[in-house]
């Protein structure tokens, strides 16, 4: 009887696959990424290595000694306290306690302070509270503590913001008006982000993490890159991390450019060059998980994209690993078997500098 290995589907469901099935899915996943982004597929040896990692009988795996990488967390401060469908565990605690637990108990190498809404725009009305919390956290902690939030440009459109919703304008075939709305929103997003970070830097922040850049399309990245550029000019030593929302930068506007490059349609190995040019220290490539495919398919696809980004990058790449990204199933609390296997493959095969 052929041996079957207990793996996962992209939605976390248990699935049993033979080695032949695993290899077929690995090849197919890697080929998909290579075809879409025009980057090299993984070699036969690399696919074999991922298969070995996936077939390891242990429930969880780890990297080989000497291959450890820094690990940081994004919304971690409220991951302890949060309990609203946002992957938090609902243990009443302050953000200071959340940060210190990550630093002293969970081994986080850098940490991030984040607001419960976790977008830049809603930080404006509570900036004084954020500044005070940052100061208190900095007084109690040693590891670099960034401030993190999502650019989330969608908040600048109706009904949440002042500019007409491009989705509504598009439906009415008002394409130029939709593009203008995105351009206005991008200007405001850049301005708000810089304003917020000026205050947090004054409160002792070590830097900023732009989380899920591009979630609202190319305008979202356009605004973020301009904010990075502005902050880098004002704070030459500031730590700036740019983490993406997905592997493909969607062209909601379609014609925006940064430094002469059209943003729509960029893949991780192209995104990273612009992030570095704008002044980021670290780039966080993201590859979304397809819930209908197996974990070998998703992981090989993710490793292919990320390996190409690492090779093209002039700055360190800290890959985003978690619910629904990096070959990990889309599940509120991803299972340790999937998380540890995907993380090991990212370090040992994609060559990431951190997670």
């Amino acid at each position, binding site marked *: 009887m052929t041996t079957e290995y207990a793996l996962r589907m992209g939605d976390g469901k248990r699935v049993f696959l033979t080695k032949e099935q695993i290899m077929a899915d690995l090849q197919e996943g890697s080929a998909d990424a290579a075809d879409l982004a025009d980057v090299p597929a993984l070699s036969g040896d690399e696919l074999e290595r991922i298969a070995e990692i996936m077939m390891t009988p242990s429930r969880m795996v780890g990297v080989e000694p000497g291959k450890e990488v820094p690990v940081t967390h994004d919304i971690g401060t409220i991951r302890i306290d949060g309990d609203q469908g946002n992957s938090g565990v609902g243990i009443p605690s302050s953000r200071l306690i959340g940060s210190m637990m990550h630093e002293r108990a969970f081994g986080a190498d850098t940490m991030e302070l984040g607001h419960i809404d976790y977008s830049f725009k809603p930080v404006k009305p509570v900036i004084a509270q954020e500044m005070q919390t940052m100061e208190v956290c900095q007084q109690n902690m040693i590891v670099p503590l960034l401030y993190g939030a999502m650019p989330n440009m969608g908040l600048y459109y109706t009904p949440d913001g002042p500019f007409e*919703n491009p*989705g509504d304008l598009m439906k009415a075939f008002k394409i130029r008006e939709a*593009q203008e709305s995105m351009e206005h929103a991008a200007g405001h997003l850049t301005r708000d982000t810089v304003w917020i970070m000026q205050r947090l830097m004054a409160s002792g922040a070590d830097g900023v993490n732009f989380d899920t850049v591009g979630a609202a399309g190319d305008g979202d990245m356009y605004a973020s890159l301009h904010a990075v550029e502005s902050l880098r000019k004002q704070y030459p030593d500031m730590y700036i991390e740019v983490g993406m929302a997905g592997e493909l930068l969607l062209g909601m506007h379609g014609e925006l450019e940064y430094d002469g490059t059209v943003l729509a349609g960029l893949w991780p190995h192209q995104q990273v060059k612009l992030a570095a040019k704008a002044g980021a220290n670290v780039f966080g490539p993201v590859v979304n998980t397809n819930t209908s495919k197996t974990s070998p398919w998703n992981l090989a696809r993710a490793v292919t994209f990320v390996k190409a980004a690492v090779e093209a990058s002039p700055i360190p790449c800290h890959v985003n690993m978690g619910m629904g990204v990096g070959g990990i199933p889309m599940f509120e609390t991803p299972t340790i078997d999937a998380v540890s296997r995907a993380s090991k493959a990212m370090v040992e095969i994609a060559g990431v500098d951190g997670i």
Partner: protein
Amino acid sequence: MSNEEMFKELSDAIVSCKKDAVIATVEKARDEGIPPAEIIEKGLAAGMNEVGVLFERGKLFLPHVMMAAGAMEAGVALLEKDMPKDAASKKLGIIVNGTVEGDVHDIGKSIVSTMLQSSGFEVHDIGRDVPLQDFIDKAKETSANMIGMSALMTTTLPGQKDVIEMLKEQGMRDDIKVMVGGAPATEAWANKIGADCYAENASEAVAKAKELLL
């Protein structure tokens, strides 16, 4: 120029997303005596299919799809007077599309609505965070053939199942097809809740809607 070459030129004009180019090519094809239905089906619609493929591969985006759809509409309008009245205004089906209650995600659902509309369906996009009964009310009001439901969170996904149950309770399930989508939805989920289909992306939504309604 052969008809095949003409169809290719029409298709390329649509892919260029330029209205002027489409109008000029449609006039040229009409002058060559190609029947309007063939100009639309083998030229313009084929071009829209190609736009769909390029959209799926991340080479073209929503504004481009909209521009191509606008160009196609202008091309079809030119031919309308030469076509039987019914043929010009015929819709492929009526679809009510929205994001279920509790879920404010809008972009993916809007792209699906746009692609369905561009492909010839009459689409009633009822927005995001839509109370579940509203899907059914709108379907009744518009005599819809299909309800499309998006959910981007595992916590809101059960809303899709609830609407299907409500359709059954209200005796409407046999008359209306149900399509589900969104990041946490899967083929297995669609089967489990008794949906008629699951679509992974906008192009697939169009293909499956055609499969179910035509």
